[in-house]
């Protein structure tokens, strides 16, 4: 079992169709990709936000009310 590390990514990172999520190994000095590293056992758990072919209104457990002097 290799050592386990936690890393962070932005919250609410919405990625739309056509975009790619890539896991890669970078050289710590140059930032270039390091060859010879294989990535295995990839698991991604996502929220599926829905189709993008038509605009949709967000909905949820909230209620908008007029503010003061509205």
């Amino acid at each position: 079992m290799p050592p386990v590390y936690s890393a962070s990514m932005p919250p609410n990172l919405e990625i739309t169709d056509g975009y790619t999520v890539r896991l890669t190994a970078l050289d710590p000095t140059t930032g270039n990709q390091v060859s010879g590293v294989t990535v295995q056992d990839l698991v991604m758990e996502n929220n599926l936000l829905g189709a993008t072919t038509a605009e949709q209104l967000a909905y949820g457990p909230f209620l908008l009310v007029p503010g003061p002097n509205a």
Partner: protein
Amino acid sequence: MDYVVPIASDIEPLVVTATFDGSGAGGSFIPCLEVLSPAGNVVARCPANSTIAAGGSAAVSWFPWRRGVAQTSIVVPPGPLGTLFAWYDFSDTGTITLDGSGRIQGIADKSGNGHDLSQATGSQRPTETTVNGLNAGLFNHGNQTWLDSATFPTIVNQPVTIAIVWSQTLAGGGSYYPGPCGRLYGGQGCQVWVNGPANNVVSGANGNGHIDTPTSAPFSQILTVSLHSAGSSYIRVNGAQSNGGIASQGVGGIRLGHTGSATLPAEDDALNGVVCEAQYYSGQLSASQLAAVEALLKSKWGTP
């Protein structure tokens, strides 16, 4: 390894986990999650906060970051709290220069002010010992060992606060004993030494000092904090404070391991004991700073 978001879908990653096998890699690497646009440009990059050594492997999980819980306890920083003008930490061996015989040729000033100490004569260089599991400077009375600075171009005016952890290993009785710090000949400097007849530790300048808490030599490492502020100076030994009224002066140079009083020959001598750490501050530490410095040095060096 790539994952292309399917047509007509939006996703929000909650967790991404994978194993990076670097057994075939020629160098170290950082696992990274990237997002690429349809044109192939990297639009976001989330590197892990760890570098995997060449040939190593890692199981890495990415999570969305979250706002941290507010800090509710006071964290004492691992260092001085006031305005330092000199700091000598013998536990930090990276600041110590040894000669070919394993003796301390010099120690760097960790305050960054350049008040480094050195000893040009090989036979008068202190050696190293261990106190509370940490490296410390061992000074020998018979060899007249000490380390000193160049004369400061400008005297550091009072008030001055000195926190120093040290020991005196000569047998007690009837004599004055040199202390851990003093002044350069011809220059001003605050002193700490042992008044053998009175069994106490004193500070100040030109012999004008006293403390109410008796401290009989020899003793293992103690922590003294002395405030040098004209006629209202005082000294604290292991948290017990003397009455005020010690005459003192500013600092025009620093000598560790030697009291160095040009006007009082009885005190003009070399320490037989240990100096663990010495912090010189400009001004008077506040009560909270004083408490934190004493707590930190007591914990670090195991003083009473």
